C-alpha cells in the first residue's frame, strides 16, 4: 500500500479523498493555494504543501509544483480528484515518469478517450451505439442537406473543436439548414479558431444516464450500474440519482448499458474508476457520448446504493491490487439522491455569489451523507467552482428518498452566502420530479411551472421583530459603548462576526 498520498485538489472532493485515505490508514498530503490556506482539506490532512497563487493556473494546474511537493514530502501516489488535472494525460504521464502512482487510468487511456471523436470511434469498434451522425466536418451545403435528410430532422450542428454549447445549433427543417451551418461555423471559428461543424441526429429531450466502471490492472472490469443525471443547467448537473427512475419500467437497461460501457472500456485498455456517459431517448434507446476518466462528482450515490467504496477501490487497484468483487456480486439496494449545493443565486439567473459563511448547520439523521468543504467562518473563494457541498440521501425506495431529501434540505442552513438550497427543495415538491419524468430540459420547464411562494405576513412580522431585537442586543452589548453608538452598523457586524468565530 502507499506510504503517503498527495491530494491534488481542493474543496469537498479533497475532503472526501482525505477521509477515504484515513479509512485506509494512509497519511494524506494536501496542497493549497493562497486562497485556501484556511480550507478544510488543509486542516484534515496530515501534511500540507503550498503550491502558489489563487488562480488555478498558478497552483492547482501546476504539474511541476505538485510533483515537486510530492517529492519534498515523500508521497508515492497522487489522487487528482475531479476537474483541474484529473483528465490531463500529461499530468498522469509526468507522475508515472517521476515514480509517483497516478490514482486513475493510464495516461494512454486518458489520451485515447479524451477526444470525443476518438471515443466515438472506440465505441463503434466495440459495437456500442453512438448518436447517428457524421464523423467528418461538413462544409458543402449540398452534402449537409443529404446527410440531414438521411438522419431525419431535427438535427444538431456541433463544432468539431467545441464544448460548452458554443457552435451548437438545433435545425428543425431543411430551409433553416444553410443559414444554421453558416452561424454555427462562424461562432465555432470565433470561439475555437476552427469553423468545422458536423451533423448529428438530435435526440429530443433525452435522459442523461451514465454507468460507473471500475477495473484493475489485471484486466478485471465491472460496472456498478447507472446514475440518472438528467437534471442539468447549462450542462452542469444539479441533481443525480441511483438508480435511474427509468430502471423501474425498463430493468433491462442497466445490464445492457453496463455491458456496453464495459465493452468501450475494454477497447481502450481501461483500468481504475471511470464513467461512460450515455443519452437515452424516449423509446429507451441509448447512445454512448463519452468516457469520463476520473472519479465523478456524483460517485457517492452509487456508493450508497451498492455499498462499494469507490475511493478505497481506486487506491487498491492503483497499488496493483486485484479487484475484490465480481460483476455477479454487485447488488443495488434502495435509492439515493444527490443535490449539489452551490454558492449561486437562483433568483438572479444563477449568478455565482460569494461571501463568508456566517452560520452553518448541516443535516443529519437517518440516511444522510454530506460531503462538504464548509465550516462557519469559511470565506468562499471567487477563483473556483461555486459548488460548496454535496448532500446525499439514501432510503429503501425512491419516494422515501425524496421525502428524506426534502427533510434534509430543510435542515440544511447556510447563512452569509446565498445558495441554491431553496431551489433544490422546491424541486423535491415538483410533480414531474416525483413522477420520475426526467430529461435534460427539466430545469427550464420547472422554472416555468413552479408555484410562486405565497407571502406569509405572520413570518414577516416575526422576522421584523427578531431582527430589531437582534440589532438592539448587538448595539447595547458592544464594549459598553452601545449608548453612543446607536444605529451603528459596524458594532453588530463586528459582534456578529466575533460570535461566528466564537
Amino acid at each position, binding site marked *: 500500500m502507499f506510504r503517503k498520498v498527495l491530494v491534488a485538489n481542493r474543496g469537498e472532493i479533497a475532503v472526501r479523498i482525505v477521509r477515504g485515505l484515513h479509512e485506509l490508514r494512509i497519511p494524506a498530503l494536501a496542497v493549497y493555494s493562497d*486562497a485556501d490556506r484556511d480550507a478544510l482539506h488543509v486542516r484534515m490532512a496530515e501534511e500540507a504543501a503550498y503550491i502558489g497563487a*489563487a488562480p488555478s493556473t498558478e497552483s492547482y494546474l501546476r504539474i511541476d509544483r505538485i510533483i515537486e511537493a510530492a517529492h519534498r514530502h515523500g508521497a508515492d501516489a497522487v489522487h487528482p480528484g475531479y476537474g483541474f488535472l484529473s483528465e490531463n494525460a500529461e499530468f498522469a504521464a509526468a507522475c508515472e515518469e517521476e515514480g509517483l502512482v497516478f490514482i486513475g487510468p493510464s495516461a494512454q487511456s486518458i489520451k485515447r478517450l479524451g477526444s470525443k471523436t476518438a471515443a466515438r470511434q472506440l465505441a463503434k469498434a466495440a459495437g456500442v451505439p453512438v448518436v447517428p451522425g457524421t464523423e467528418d466536418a461538413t462544409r458543402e451545403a449540398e452534402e449537409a442537406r443529404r446527410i440531414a435528410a438521411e438522419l431525419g430532422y431535427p438535427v444538431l450542428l456541433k463544432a468539431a473543436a467545441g464544448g460548452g454549447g458554443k457552435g451548437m445549433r438545433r435545425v428543425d427543417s431543411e430551409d433553416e439548414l444553410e443559414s444554421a451551418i453558416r452561424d454555427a461555423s462562424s461562432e465555432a471559428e470565433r470561439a475555437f479558431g476552427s469553423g468545422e461543424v458536423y451533423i448529428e441526429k438530435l435526440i429530443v429531450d433525452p435522459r442523461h444516464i451514465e454507468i460507473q466502471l471500475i477495473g484493475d490492472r489485471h484486466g478485471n472490469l465491472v460496472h456498478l450500474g447507472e446514475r440518472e443525471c438528467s437534471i442539468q443547467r447549462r450542462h452542469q448537473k444539479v441533481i443525480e440519482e441511483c438508480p435511474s427512475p427509468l430502471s423501474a419500467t425498463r430493468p433491462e437497461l442497466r445490464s445492457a448499458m453496463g455491458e456496453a460501457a464495459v465493452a468501450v472500456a475494454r477497447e481502450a485498455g481501461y483500468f481504475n474508476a471511470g464513467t461512460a456517459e450515455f443519452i437515452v431517448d424516449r423509446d429507451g434507446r441509448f447512445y454512448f457520448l463519452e468516457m469520463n476518466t476520473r472519479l465523478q462528482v456524483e460517485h457517492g450515490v452509487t456508493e450508497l446504493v451498492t455499498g462499494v467504496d469507490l475511493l478505497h477501490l481506486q487506491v487498491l487497484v492503483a497499488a496493483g491490487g486485484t479487484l475484490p468483487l465480481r460483476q455477479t456480486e454487485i447488488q443495488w439496494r434502495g435509492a439515493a439522491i444527490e443535490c449539489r449545493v452551490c454558492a449561486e443565486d437562483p433568483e438572479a439567473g444563477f449568478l455565482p*455569489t*460569494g*461571501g*463568508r459563511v*456566517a*452560520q452553518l448547520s448541516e443535516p443529519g439523521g437517518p440516511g444522510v451523507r454530506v460531503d462538504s468543504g464548509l465550516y462557519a467562518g469559511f*470565506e*468562499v*473563494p*471567487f477563483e473556483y467552482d461555486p459548488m460548496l457541498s454535496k448532500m446525499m440521501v439514501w432510503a429503501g425506495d425512491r419516494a422515501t428518498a425524496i421525502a428524506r431529501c426534502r427533510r434534509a434540505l*430543510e435542515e440544511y*442552513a447556510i*447563512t*452569509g452566502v446565498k445558495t441554491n*438550497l*431553496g431551489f433544490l*427543495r422546491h424541486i423535491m415538491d415538483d410533480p414531474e420530479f416525483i413522477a420520475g419524468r426526467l430529461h435534460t430540459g427539466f430545469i427550464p420547464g420547472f422554472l416555468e411551472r413552479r408555484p410562486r*411562494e405565497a407571502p*406569509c405576513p405572520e*413570518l*414577516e*412580522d*416575526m*422576522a*421584523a*421583530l*427578531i*431582527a*430589531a*431585537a*437582534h*440589532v*438592539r*442586543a448587538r*448595539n447595547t452589548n458592544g464594549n459598553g459603548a452601545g449608548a453612543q*453608538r*446607536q*444605529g*451603528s*452598523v*459596524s*458594532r*453588530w*457586524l463586528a459582534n*456578529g*462576526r466575533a*460570535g*461566528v468565530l*466564537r
Partner: protein
Amino acid sequence: MNWRVVVGDREIPIDLAKLPDMREVEPGVYSVLQDGRSFLFRVAPVNGAVLVSVAGRDYKVVASDPRAGGRHGRHTLGEGRQNIGAPMPGKVIRVLVAEGDAVQHGQGLAVVEAMKMQNEVRAPRDGRVVAVKAKAGDAVTAGAVLLTIE
C-alpha cells in the same frame, strides 16, 4: 418604544417591550416559542441590513433604533459608523482616501476591479474616514469591508 423596521418594501412598527419567548441558542440563531409553536430564526449581516431566514424563507430587514434619532425614515443606517464594502469580488486597484479624511457624499473612496472592469466605490453620505482596511493589490470578496466612515 417603537422601532422602524423595513422588510422588503413593507414598514412594520415594532414594540420591543413585547417580545415572545425567544432565546439566542447560537450566535445569531434564535429559538422562538409562540402560542405553543416552535420557530428557528437565523440572522446574518448583509450589506447594511440583516438577512433573516426562517422556514426556508429569507427576509432582508433594515431595523433602526428610534433612539438613534432616525429622521430620514427608512435609511437611518446612514448614520453612525458605516462599513463600506466591496461591491463584487475582485481586486483593489487604488484606495483614494486615508484615515481621518473628511469625505463628501458621492466622493470616490476606492477602485475595485473585477473581470477587467474598474468600479469606483463612492461615499454613501458625508462623513469622515475612521478606518482603512484595504490596500491596493488586495483580493476582496463581495461585501468585504474596504473602509469605515463615520
